[in-house]
């Protein structure tokens, strides 16, 4: 069903793209216009601007404008040339050769060489929080300044995606090569080779980026200036957007904000621009704590939850259902898994089977439910809903509030919970963002977004390791299909929805960032329609 839906979506996307091209041709002579300032609004404060050693949207938004990377991606997961004009993967899958564009320079005028590529890859491997992302890389050879050969311990299908701007910024070795990279002052005054040059940062207020006149793609970028304004309060941000003070806000997910902005004249709201992140919202169990160590109890709760109510009522119909650990927009996702459709009788039966008979007061079990503080639609509301819903099968839910993020993170990462709402990103490829939740080798106390469910299944460990080295896309998809089936059956996690990230922009902004990485990719093609 979903596969057919996907085909349809793809066809629609192609039709739309063709239509857009045709329109562009008609509008004509409407070649992109130079000039103008783009004001981007965000609620997130970047710690610094160096995406090689820091993940997350706050840093990626800036880092991808300032630093170029070997490849970039379109809206349909297709790699495109960027700093690398072409690339080859060896037949055995054990090396990838990059051919860099000629004449490209960093913002300080120094040429970009394969030595810089080698330095960057090794820096990311050593310092980036996604340890699995470049783990198989053993070395980078630099036969000449324009060629870099990445050597691998075993085939690594996620490597091409890891070369995206959000994940592999190419740093100038002459700026970042000395001393400890974490404390390098250039992290706050970055020097890169991307379409925009860092100008100034007013701590916690805004940062300004100016057009790079020597960008290696001729004629780009079109914009003169990009200003990113940091607004801590989401309500203020929506009001500013409605007033027209801000031109673009990426990753808007609150239901009411989305609905309000959809109604605002002159604004376009698109649900594109976040497929790469693939943020999933789910309920995760502490699978080592009785009675949640019994899969039947977890499954019973799965059957007792009305997912349709959550999607339609709590999330206002703007979010998509998620059935498994891989985001549905990924080419590796399958919906051929148990859906846990609402079935209260089955839920009760499973609870009976698990030995949880109702007491005199009808209560079988009392449990706590946590959520990430600040998540209202996808967090607090859902957990509050569980309280009334699960009462129907004899489960009493106590909602536990955490005053702030560190409190929640400490509870969950130290296994002090029964079930928690959680929001976790796929980051494009399972190797980067999915494995960490399920590998038993990643049960690491005190580390949030490791395998905090303490889920352990040798079959899953084996399949994930195999799939992480399988270069044939069809075989790889089959392995992940098997993985998804097992994990959904074991139910350490109940999947609810894809986080509804929306990109909101003024309608006269052309080529807005709607690729798989959205605003975490260069704005070199963005321009203002001045008519």
């Amino acid at each position: 069903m979903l596969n057919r839906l996907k085909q349809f979506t793809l066809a629609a996307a192609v039709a739309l793209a063709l239509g857009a091209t045709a329109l562009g041709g008609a509008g004509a002579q409407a070649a992109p216009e130079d000039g103008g300032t783009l004001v981007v609004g965000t609620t997130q404060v970047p710690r610094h601007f160096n995406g090689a050693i820091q993940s997350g949207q706050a840093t990626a938004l800036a880092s991808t404008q300032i630093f170029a990377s070997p490849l970039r991606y379109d809206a349909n997961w297709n790699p495109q040339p960027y700093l690398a004009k072409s690339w080859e993967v060896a037949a055995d899958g054990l090396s990838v050769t990059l051919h860099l564009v000629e004449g490209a320079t960093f913002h300080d005028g120094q040429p970009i060489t394969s030595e810089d590529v080698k330095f960057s890859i090794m820096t990311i491997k050593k310092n980036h929080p996604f340890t699995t992302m470049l783990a198989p890389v053993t070395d980078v050879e630099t036969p000449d300044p324009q060629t870099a050969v990445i050597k691998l311990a075993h085939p690594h299908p996620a490597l091409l995606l890891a070369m995206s701007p959000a994940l592999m910024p190419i740093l100038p070795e002459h700026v970042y090569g000395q001393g400890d990279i974490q404390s390098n002052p250039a992290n706050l005054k970055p020097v890169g080779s991307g379409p925009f040059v860092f100008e100034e940062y007013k701590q916690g207020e805004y940062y300004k980026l100016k057009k790079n006149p020597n960008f290696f793609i001729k004629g780009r970028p079109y914009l003169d200036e990009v200003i990113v304004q940091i607004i801590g309060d989401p309500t203020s941000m929506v009001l500013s957007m409605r007033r027209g003070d801000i031109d673009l806000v990426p990753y808007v997910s609150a239901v009411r904000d989305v609905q309000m902005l959809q109604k605002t004249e002159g604004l376009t709201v698109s649900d594109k621009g976040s497929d790469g992140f693939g943020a999933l919202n789910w309920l995760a169990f502490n699978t080592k704590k009785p009675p949640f160590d019994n899969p039947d109890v977890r499954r019973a709760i799965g059957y007792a939850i009305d997912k349709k109510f959550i999607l339609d009522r709590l999330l206002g119909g703007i979010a998509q259902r998620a059935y498994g650990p891989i985001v549905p927009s990924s080419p590796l996702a399958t919906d051929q898994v148990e859906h846990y459709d609402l079935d209260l009788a089955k839920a009760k039966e499973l609870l009976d089977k698990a030995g949880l008979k109702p007491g005199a007061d009808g209560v079988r079990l009392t449990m706590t439910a946590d959520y990430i503080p600040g998540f209202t639609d996808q967090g607090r509301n859902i957990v509050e809903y569980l309280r009334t819903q699960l009462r129907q099968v004899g489960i009493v839910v106590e909602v536990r509030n955490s005053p702030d993020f560190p409190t929640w993170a400490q509870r969950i990462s130290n296994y002090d919970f029964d079930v928690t709402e959680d929001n976790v990103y796929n980051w494009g490829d399972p190797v980067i963002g999915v494995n960490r939740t399920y590998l038993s080798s990643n049960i690491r106390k005190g580390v949030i977004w490791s395998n905090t469910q303490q889920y352990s299944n040798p079959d899953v460990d084996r399949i994930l390791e195999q799939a992480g080295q399988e270069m044939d896309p069809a075989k790889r998809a089959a392995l992940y299909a098997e993985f998804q089936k097992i994990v959904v059956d074991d139910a350490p996690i109940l999947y609810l929805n894809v986080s509804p990230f929306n990109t909101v922009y003024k309608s006269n902004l052309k080529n807005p960032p709607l690729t798989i990485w959205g605003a975490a990719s260069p704005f070199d093609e963005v321009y203002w329609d001045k008519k």
Partner: protein
Amino acid sequence: MKRLLPLFSRLASTLGLLLAVVVLNFLLIQMAPGDPVSVIVGEMGGASEELIARMRAEYGLDQPLHVQLGVYVWKILHGDFGFSYYFKEPVLSLILQRLPATILLVVTALAVAVLVGTLLGIFSARRPRGPLNYLVTLVSLAGYSAPVFWTGLMLVILFSSILPLFPVSGMADVRGAETFLGGVADVAHHLVLPAVTLASIYIAIYSRLSRATMLDVLGADYIRTARAKGLSERRVVYGHALRNALIPVVTMVGLQFGQLFAGAVLVETVFNWPGLGRLAFESILRRDYPTLLGILFFSAILVVVANILTDIAYGLVDPRIRTRKPAAARKPKATGAPR
């Protein structure tokens, strides 16, 4: 020398107080769950145990608590406020960047509150049963009881969204102003809503306070004397009564300086005002101990300075109150009536 003695003792007690503030703040912050490394790791999307251990060691978080406290006090005594875990900048430079915005906001709000508050108090005192009196009471009580962030949001919805008169948030237009004067006007434009929001609570307090003392003073003998002399009502109220009615207001301003900072935390957060209050709020969320301790220490100093300024202001409002002059040196007045 003898005259300087009270000054020295005051200085000594102030320093002791500040030290106590540092120690207490340090211990209080430690009681919050989670630490800065857990926040940073959370925002990075996870990290290896080695990296976490490395960061904890780098920040000295692996040391026992008393060692951390000792190191911190030692640094403070040497004027070193430490390095922000989160922003990777010296705390002192972070604070100095944010301080002007907070001072601008707090001082403007205070000025608005005192001016509007006392005027309202005087108006309603002059006709204690008039309709204006009841209106002022109602409005000021509403301002006092409403939570600051709620008042702020309501003002934003009314004056930024429905009537697009003022900007929603921030201190200046990020696109930048053409001229210096244009920049000043831009900041003033952004200042209106936050300052009014912060002032709203204090307007109530000052209007109630000045109304009460004004009623008191207007009944005093010397006012009757002034009226008997045939002075105009305006001279009586503003020339004679106001000065005495202001003394409790001045006391209150001094006492409330600390609370104003607390109010600024909320107002700055709602209006995205780039001051110390918002920095404090962000530092709490991120468990950025050095930054938060630095801000608390700075606010303590500001409160102490405010108290000293209040004492000086007493002297200006009422020359009989001079802290440095021993009481005996004061010439007793012939009559008990104030002036």
